[in-house]
């Protein structure tokens, strides 16, 4: 594995397997009465969040704490510019405090790359702009692996605002690396330029795609996209691209439904689908996030090899 985790595209199939295996091993810690191991004792992890994301921050915080690392939360809401201090100065400050890893969430695509140039610490991308969210992809893959024996030929539809989705980019990279067959489903206005070069199938017709899928990954659609004219109305979006009970029934019996959260119930996903005990693995995704992030911190901060 590379020193930092910036892009899911930097991970080989071997890297991904190692993260998932390590996560499976560390998940057992969570089942114990005392949910803590001393592996990263004396190491410091900084959560540097320029955007609000309580769930991602808490997930990283729990992951680090269960490995006995010291955790500091540096939340700098808004851009570094509006705050008055530059990202570079923040980086220098954290470096001087001797942190071992920086988990960064930032509204600007590429910010973790800039940070990695300025610090010696390990940098983990916890979501940058409309670019990537590699730990989300890894926890999604972990969740899929709990249900399916292999990624080879696994059919995954990623549905919604692919254009602005960091979850979609990282998942496409990780899933194609593992040999899954990805189909992106969205209105043409919410697909990136030259998406045909991504090595995935593309469709505008959710009903045609769903029956063939093992996994339907629904993306959060943001209200501001409607205001910016990417689609005419939320109602029309829900009608064309929302996953409701009728569409769920059209899926294979073994197929699962995923969502990175937070959900817009009634828009990209109907409440009955989100709450479906047999089909929805959305709560599993959240739980698995902690194990996967434990595995990443463990591997990136150079813990001893775990044998499973």
């Amino acid at each position, binding site marked *: 594995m590379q020193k930092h985790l910036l892009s899911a595209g930097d991970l080989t199939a071997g890297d991904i397997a190692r993260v998932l295996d390590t996560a499976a091993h560390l998940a057992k810690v969570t089942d114990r009465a005392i949910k803590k191991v001393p592996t990263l004792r004396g190491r410091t992890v900084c959560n540097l969040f320029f955007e609000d994301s309580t769930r991602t921050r808490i997930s990283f915080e729990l992951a680090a704490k269960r490995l006995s690392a010291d955790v500091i939360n540096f939340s700098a809401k808004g*851009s*570094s*510019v509006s705050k008055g201090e*530059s*990202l*570079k100065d923040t980086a220098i400050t954290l470096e001087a405090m001797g942190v071992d890893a920086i988990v960064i969430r*930032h509204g*600007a*695509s*590429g*910010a973790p*790359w*800039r940070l990695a140039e300025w610090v010696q610490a390990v940098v983990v991308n916890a979501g*940058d*702009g*409309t*670019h*990537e969210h590699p730990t989300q992809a890894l926890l999604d893959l972990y969740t899929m692996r709990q249900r399916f024996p292999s990624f080879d030929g696994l059919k995954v539809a990623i549905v919604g605002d692919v254009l602005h989705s*960091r979850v979609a*980019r990282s998942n496409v990279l990780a899933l194609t690396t593992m040999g899954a067959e990805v189909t992106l489903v969205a209105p043409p206005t919410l697909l*990136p*330029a*030259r*998406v045909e*070069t*991504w090595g995935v199938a593309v469709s505008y017709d959710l009903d045609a795609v769903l029956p063939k899928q093992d996994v339907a990954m629904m993306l959060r659609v943001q209200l501001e996209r409607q205001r910016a004219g990417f689609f005419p109305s939320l109602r029309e979006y829900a009608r064309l691209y929302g996953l409701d009970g009728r569409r769920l029934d059209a899926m294979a019996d073994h197929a699962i439904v995923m969502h990175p959260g937070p959900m817009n119930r009634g828009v990209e996903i109907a409440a009955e689908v989100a709450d479906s005990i047999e089909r929805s693995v959305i709560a599993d995704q959240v739980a698995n996030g902690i194990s996967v992030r434990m595995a990443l911190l463990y591997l990136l901060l150079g813990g001893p090899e775990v044998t499973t």
Partner: protein
Amino acid sequence: MSRLLLRGGRLVDPASRHDGTADVLVEDGRVVEVGSGLDGTGAEVVDCDGLVVCPGLVDLHVHLREPGREDAETIETGSRAAALGGYTAVCPMPNTDPVADNAGVVEMVAARGREVGLVEVFPVGAVTLGQRGSELAELGAMARSAARVDCFSDDGRPIREARLLRLALEYARAFDAVIADHAEDASLTDGAQMHEGEVSAMLGLAGWPAAAEEMVVARDLLLAELTGGRLHLCHVSTAGAVEVVRAARARGVRVTAEAAPHHFTLTDEAARSYDPVFKVNPPLREKADVEAVRLGLADGTLDAIATDHAPHAREDKEVEWATAPPGMLGLETALAVTLTELVEPGYLDLAVAVERLTVGPARCRRVSGHGGPVAPGAPANLAVFDPAAVWTVDRARLASRARNTPFHGRQLRGRVVHTLLRGVFTVCDGQATR
């Protein structure tokens, strides 16, 4: 009386179609004789054997940041960078603070240029007040001022409203002035961070589609045709734009156009580093665009190489990509980049390359006394360069106050040895004289 003899160089003077060994005798700031075996008695003799002697380079498009952002560049540091690049004339754009939209500012810029005395500074005035795109600035006052402005632009921003551009093109005819447009459909580039394509999609950066440039170029050409006004297109960067200009020229539209060295050298792939030193507007495009710009320069669809030299303070570029302002340095590398990227691979002959850097731009607007011909009576605005010298760009050693060159670390062929402004060395043996 000062006499200077440039002896034994290869004189490349596109304006007189001269390309061959010749001596150039300079007296009191003017060329007095061009020929072989000239008598150097009483003259300082400069051995130019193995070197190219040509008219001083002319840059139609620079940002010198004075007044307003003297921490990024000043007329003095920018002039020194220009002289080191072989330039004797530069045209600073009006997007200063305050904007050069009135006689006072353009006169101040021109006067400061004269005071520094390293290159001749021909200011560009703003087309609209404050470059806000709503009402015409006093073009006449700037044209009639001591700065004698004959080129207007809202560069950095497009002239959004077709009606306003039409009026500007018509009104400027009274002064035989040129309107230089930055072609960008702002409604298609709102929030854009880089060229729209495969790379922008992967990097999650909002895209600036080629069509946003091409449709405005097409509009501008139609308005030039409608008004008979003089249109100049700044920094043409896409294959489609080159094609539209080529077709317009073929049917006789009065238009000139420029291209920047970074647009015929670098592609959007450079953005993968997320280093904003590669952020520029219009953005770095794709391989096919680079190729089209090269061919456009080769066949004369594009008249001029213009640097769009855009210095930025270090702290302004050491930030997240989306936060950084667009723009990159160009003055000290343009000649070498042209020789390395266009002449060496055979896109342009050396003489054509020199044309696109000298008389080509000089014909786009009045920059009297520059661009050649190197003939008796002409001011001795000259550059002498070693076409074989290989050097590596080091941003720490630039004369510009800023450091944002996209060519840092790149090995280039061709280096300026001397630059003369009205017969006086501004650069001698590769060093600025002041």
